């Protein structure tokens, strides 16, 4: 098609293989956070955290397809409003609106770094108390 080769074709799913997913889900915290977002079956009221189940989902064709779609739809900027529902900072939202995947991922990384720094230094402080 007539799209510019560089902007449109970065597909994160290309690197999300079994080995990669197993490495990421070796962290129990990660498994715990991803578990509630997995597809749920009729008989399940609540999911119990289970690394195998997270791995199975992340390497399933359905998830891989969704991730590829996410990446290929990103440059259009149309994911902006959808991404805004997920408590991102202004940089990330701005990047999503303008359709810049690289800037979006950089912003997520920055937020994660900031959060980790504040987690360790301000652990004792109750959150959101510095209102004026």
């Amino acid at each position, binding site marked *: 098609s007539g799209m510019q080769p560089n902007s449109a074709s970065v597909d994160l799913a290309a*690197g999300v293989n079994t080995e990669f997913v197993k490495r990421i889900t070796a962290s129990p915290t990660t498994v715990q956070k991803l578990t509630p977002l997995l597809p749920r079956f009729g008989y399940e009221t609540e999911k119990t955290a289970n690394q195998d189940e997270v791995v199975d989902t992340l390497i399933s064709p359905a998830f891989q397809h969704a991730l590829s779609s996410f990446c*290929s739809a990103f440059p259009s900027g149309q994911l902006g409003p959808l*991404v805004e529902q997920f408590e991102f900072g202004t940089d990330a939202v701005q990047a999503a609106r303008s359709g810049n995947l690289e800037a979006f991922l950089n912003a997520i990384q920055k937020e994660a770094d900031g959060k980790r720094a504040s987690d360790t230094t301000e652990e004792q402080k109750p959150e959101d108390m510095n209102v004026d």
Partner: protein
Amino acid sequence: MSENAEGTWCLIESDPGVFTELIREFGCKGLQVEELWSLEEDDFNRLKPVHGLIFLFKWIGPSTSGTSEGSVVEDSRLEKIFFPRQVINNACASFAIISTLMNLDHPDVELGKVLSEFKDFTKSFDPAMKGLALSNSETIRSVHNSFARQTLFEFEEKSASKDDDVYHFVSFLPINGRLYELDGLRDGPVDHGAISDGKDWTNLVRTVLQERINRYNEGEIHFNLMAIVSDRKTQAERKLADLEAIGQATPDKVLELKQILVEEEAKRSRFKLENIRRKHNYLPLIVQFLKELAQQKQLLPLYEKAKEKSQSRVKKQPAS
């Protein structure tokens, strides 16, 4: 979230799990769908009884169909054959399946309330009106659409379908001793001739399909063949009961049938699982996954790797 606007039909995947569940959710009982990987006689025999075939192929335009093979039915048979013209895009999977189901006459098959009522209601309609009624049926449309992949990225799918290949589904089935092809883009059912006495109809359809595939071969056509067959689990259960009733349930036979039962049960739960995965909204999971990758400092390395891959892919491709 993008919702399906009234009247739109989503693309669905050509997959035996999707088709099997689609048929069940239309309320039709006694059937399942199996994918065929070849036109070998053995592959068809293994699935007997085969009630109909759904053939998916790249649609090159009306000029390619209709050359030499078959003739469009225009006589009174039209009153007996359920044939809807396909008046909307993306619905051809459901159109092909429903056209087949509506024309089945077999003790294993129970059409169900939704489809029987629809068949009754549209009995006197011509093909175009039948197609219109079908595309306006809210029940049928909502079942069809529930099998679409999450429509979150709908615009992406749309732009793809514009450039990319257009696929089309048609069905083949025997009606009153003759082989018919139901293609919603034709004016009527296509008659492929009489089925020889005592022969299974699949012998004839294999020849017709082989000729068609040969015709496409040069241009690397993609095609895919699904068989609508009797529910294999019910069939095995029935055979088992019959053998026991006449005292001929030998250990060998019992083992063979029990094996089929186990396989079919496993297949059903796999279909269910795949369909739940297919219908899930993955956006929250994607977002959290990206955040987790960032926590583990794996996000930007993953992006860099993906970028490298896409650039090497671009380099390899000749400029178009």
